[in-house]
Each structure stands twice: as structure tokens, then as C-alpha cells.
């Protein structure tokens, strides 16, 4: 488990991180969400040790993270970059070897990864000759080429076409399934919502919310329900403890004062005809995000 606790960081008079703390559990995909300038990149750089924090620490299984541990991280910086005038394959082998892989292992990993990311035929091409999407795939390969045990990815999906997103998703899920803690930031809230087990929301350098996706959705959900029934739903207005928000034929959205009141609506609806759906309306990540950040 990777634990970030009590991190403070300032640039000049500007406090960019205030008491930032959260954890990334083994085998979990943790989404790191925040507006531009909220402190995501700074936090990730501090985790990777490229920047030092004013105070606070990064712990791995309870012990402070060492340079040796960090070598086992796969990192994808927000600012993309590889050597433009170096062949894709050579570049990945070089990075793998800097991590300590033998030449043979570096070559094997490079070939496997390029194949999986659909770049197998471009191994001999200069990075600068690749399309932006392919450069992005190469960048992901650079983060994974040394078989990292931890992944920290800053905006891994920005600039990827939908097919590449799926490819990368699959690779990341494999890593998480193999037990790797995966932390990634993204602006694409729908993607994060679909992908993440855990969520961390940061705004203005402070962690505003964090926990499992389900917990957050429960935490921020209002007692709002949606029903879709055969019969006209106008009668719901008359039920005690119910405020109808929206109503159209057999569909209605309402707020209930208590669980009992909402269940009463369901029972009543069933007596009036078929009920196609009934459910607790839980907020989307985008809604939670808006609420938390304000």
C-alpha cells in the first residue's frame, strides 16, 4: 500500500499543497481528479521524488519510500516526452536498462509491450515520425517497460483515440489485477468513473474527498429516486413524505423523506400496474466533483 500523508508544498508565497493525504491500495485503480492547477502533478512528482515536499511523507507499506523503491515505479509524467531522434524500440530498451534490466530482458519486454500496444511495426521508427496517438502509446510503453510494481500515471488517456484508450485500459487493469497499486489522474470523469475502484478529489491543493467509488457516491447522494412505470405516475404527488422533482407520464423523479416513504411509492406503483424500473438516483462523478470542488 502506498500512503501519502500530510504533504505540504509551496512555491514562493503560493501554497500549492496543503496537508495532502490519501492512500493507494494494492491491486486497486485509484483515480486522482482535480481541475487544472489543483495540485495533481505536484503531488505525483512528490510521490516519485522528483520534487521534495516541505513536509509530510510518502510511505510504502508503512516505511518511507526510498530511491530503490521508486525504481520499481512506472511513471508517466503529464508533460510527455521521449527523445525525438531515437528509435522507439531503442529508446524503450534504454529506459529499461536504466532501471537495471539486462539487455536481453529489456529487449524482450520492449517487443512484448510494443506488440500489445499495437506499435510492433513501428519499433524501428524515430519517435518524432510517429503520430501523436502513437507517441502517446510509446509513452505508456516507457512507463511499463521495466515491469513496474506500482504505476503513477498523469493523464494517461489525454490525446488517445478511443481504440487506444481501450488498449491502455486493458493493460492497466492487468497490472491492477496482478496486484499493482495504480494511481492515475484524468480530466475524463466518465472514464475515471468507469475505471476506478477508488477516487481522490483534489481542489486548490487540498484533498476534498476520497474513498471507494461506491462510498463516495453514497456519501454524496441525495434521497432521490426514479421510477418508470406503466401507468401514469401523477398519483405520486399525493404520497406523504414525497416531493416530486420531475414528472412525465409513467416516469417520475422524486425525493423521499425516508426509506419507508420511497418503498411505499414502489408498493403503490406495483398495485397500479407494471413497474419497469425503480432506483435510488446516485450522483455521477461529474456531479460529485462539481459539488466537492465548489
Amino acid at each position: 500500500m502506498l500512503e501519502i500523508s500530510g504533504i505540504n508544498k509551496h512555491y514562493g508565497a503560493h501554497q500549492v499543497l496543503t496537508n495532502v493525504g490519501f492512500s493507494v491500495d494494492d491491486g486497486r485503480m485509484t483515480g486522482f481528479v482535480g481541475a487544472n492547477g489543483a495540485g495533481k502533478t505536484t503531488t505525483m512528482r512528490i510521490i516519485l521524488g522528483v520534487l521534495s515536499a516541505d513536509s509530510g511523507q510518502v510511505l510504502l507499506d508503512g516505511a518511507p519510500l526510498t530511491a530503490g523503491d521508486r525504481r520499481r515505479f512506472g511513471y508517466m509524467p503529464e508533460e510527455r516526452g521521449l527523445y525525438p531522434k531515437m528509435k522507439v524500440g531503442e529508446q524503450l530498451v534504454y529506459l529499461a536498462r536504466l532501471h537495471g534490466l539486462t539487455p536481453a530482458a529489456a529487449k524482450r519486454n520492449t517487443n512484448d509491450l510494443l506488440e500489445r500496444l499495437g506499435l510492433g511495426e513501428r519499433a524501428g521508427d524515430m519517435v518524432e515520425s510517429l503520430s501523436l496517438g502513437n507517441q502517446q502509446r510509446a509513452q505508456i510503453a516507457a512507463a511499463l517497460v521495466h515491469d513496474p510494481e506500482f504505476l503513477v500515471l498523469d493523464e494517461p488517456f489525454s490525446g488517445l483515440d478511443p481504440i487506444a484508450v481501450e488498449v491502455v485500459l486493458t493493460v492497466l487493469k492487468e497490472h491492477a489485477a496482478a496486484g499493482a497499486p495504480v494511481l492515475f489522474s484524468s480530466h475524463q470523469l466518465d472514464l475515471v468513473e468507469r475505471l476506478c475502484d477508488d477516487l481522490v478529489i483534489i481542489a486548490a491543493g487540498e484533498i476534498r474527498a476520497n474513498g471507494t467509488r461506491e462510498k463516495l457516491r453514497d456519501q454524496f447522494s441525495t434521497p432521490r429516486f426514479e421510477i418508470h412505470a406503466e401507468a401514469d405516475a401523477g398519483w405520486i404527488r399525493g404520497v406523504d413524505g414525497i416531493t416530486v422533482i420531475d414528472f412525465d407520464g409513467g416516469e417520475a423523479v422524486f425525493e423521499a423523506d425516508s426509506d419507508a416513504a420511497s418503498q411505499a411509492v414502489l408498493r403503490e406503483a406495483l398495485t397500479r400496474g407494471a413497474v419497469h424500473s425503480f432506483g435510488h438516483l446516485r450522483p455521477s462523478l461529474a456531479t460529485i466533483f462539481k459539488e466537492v470542488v465548489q
Partner: protein
Amino acid sequence: MSTETEPGTRQATPAAARTTVATHDAPSFWASVWLVASREIAARLRSKAFLISTGILFVIAIGSVVAGGLLSANPSSTSVAVVGSASSVVGESAGLTAVPADDLAAAEALVRDGTVEAAVVPNGDSLLGVTVIALDSPPMDVVNALSVAPEVQLLDPASQGGFLVYLVALGFGLVFFMSALTFGSTIAQSVVEEKQTRVVEILMTTIPVRALLAGKVVGNSIMAFGQIVAIAVLVAIGMAVTGQRVLLADLGPAIIWFAVFFAFGFVMLASLYAATASMVSRQEDVGTATSPVAYLVMIPYFAVIFFNDNPLVLGIMSYVPFSAPVGMPVRIFLGSAEWWEPLLSLAILLVSTVGVILLGSRIYRNSLLRMGGRVTFKQALRG
């Protein structure tokens, strides 16, 4: 893998335990340095600009040796027309070839049509018994050859002639200047390339920043030093082949010292180039950022050209770390350095190189992630 958990619930529970066994060992500091250095060398060898400029430098080196050999092997002999008894006067003089002419008119005709540079004709009235006839200006080589010079006694003879000293000083200065500037700006560009393309952030998370800097300095120093040694070998072979063994024996020790001083002097300059380049984020700004270092390279070059006959300036130059790689070899060639002087100067150079590397790596580390505007020295040093 647990087979009992259902696929749908697996995500919510902690998945398979993380494998904490490192599959590979971290490379040692020097292994990282060497990996970085090898990449630098490979990148240089693949660059057409580098190969072409190296080729040109080699051609210039060989060309100047061959030209020098031809000049010294064939001291030009001047043809003069001689009439009558004047032939005995000319015949005894070195550097003159006598072309017999029948009479004064024939000799003058030879002078006019350019066959000979001058004519020497008998003249009983003059002290030497001859008159020299030339076309439009006194032919100094002929006059000198026929003149009687008083005996000269030197109290403290210079071991080398003035013009040769100038050439040797120019040679050392030029080679140092060219190599340091070429490889210095190469290393500067390579630092900014990594910063501008942001690949540096991945590198920084992988190996220590000091290993990255050391690798770049070592890689480029190997290339610069290799180029210097190749030039030295080419010059030595060229001199041996063209029969300039005497000059080679005089120049040999100076060349060897030059190579030694250059090796350390370049490491120092390379660190400075890397450090100053890391303070900017775009290739366009490299020139401005590294110009103070470029001055440090240029000053010794111009100083040695203008002051190679000034023992005081040369003496100072041979101890100042930035100019010692040029100043000390020139003094060794002149024979004006005591045996311990190069060693002392080398010690000063070594100490300053270590100091500059420490300072440079501090600037480098503190500047690498500061994008955008130029990092000030204050920021770079404080971190």
C-alpha cells in the same frame, strides 16, 4: 488467483497480493553513468553534422602538416641571371640559382620577361664587384644572399623561432577552442533537448540526477578527447612521414601535455555548459544561457594569439584553470616551464574541476524541472 470470488465482486476486494520481489537489481551509479554516456556517444556518432565537422577538422590537421612539410622541404630557390664574372659571386650563395646570360642586355631582357627575379652583373666600382638589377623593387632575398652579415652572438637564445611559436600557439588555441566550443554546445543542446522534450522527468525518476549529469559529461568528454587524440596522432604521423622529425621531437611533449590538460579542462567546461544550459527550457535560449562559458573558452584562444611572445601573460595563462590547457603546452614548447610547473597547474585544474562539477550539478539538479522562463542563478543555487 482466487477462483471463489466472482468476477463482479473482485474489483471491490483487494486483488492478488502485490509481488514485492524485485525482478532486477538497480544498476550501480557508474553503470547508470555508462548507460547515459553510451547513449550520448551513439547519438553523436549517428549525427551527420558531427561526422562531417570531424572529417573537416581531420583534413585541416593533415593539410597543415603536409603544407608545413612541403614549405620546409623545398626552400625556394631564386633564379638570377648572371653575366660574366658575377657567376662566381652568385655561385657561392645559397638559395640562388644562376642563369647565365650573354651580356647586360640579355640579362635585362630575362628580368623583364620574368624568367629570373633579378640579374647580377659585374661592376668594378662597387664594393662587392657586382650590381643587382631588378624590375620594380629591390629583391631582398637576392640582396640578403649576396650581403655580408656581421657575426651575431645571442646571450640567451630562444629555443624556438618566433613564427613557429606563433603557429604552435595558434594550433593549440584553435584545437582547444574548436573542440571545447563544439562539444560544449553539443552537451548544452542535449541537456535542453531532454528538458524541452520533458524526457528528463522520466530519467530523473529512474536514475540519480548526478548520474545523468556525469553520463552526459563523460560521454561528450570521451568524444572530444577522442577527437583531440586522433588529431594529435594524425599530426604526429604526418610530421614523421613528411620528414619533420626534429619539430616532432620538440612538439611531442607539448602535445601530450595538451591532451592531458584538455581532458580535465573539458570536463570542467562540459559541466559548466550542462549547468548553464539546464537553466533554460528552449533550444533558442541555449546560446544566450551558455555565452558566459563560451567567453571562458574564447579568452584563452585570443590571449594566446596576441600574447604568445609575452612571458608574463603566458605564465598567468598557464595557471588559470580555463586557459591552462592552452597556456601550459605553449610554455612547455618554448622550454620556459620548469618540470614541476605543469604538475602544479594540473593540480590547480583538478581541484577547480571538482569544485565546478559540484557547483554545476547543484545548478543542474535545481533547474531541470523549472520550465518556462530562465532560471536565475540565485534560484538555481538555492534550490
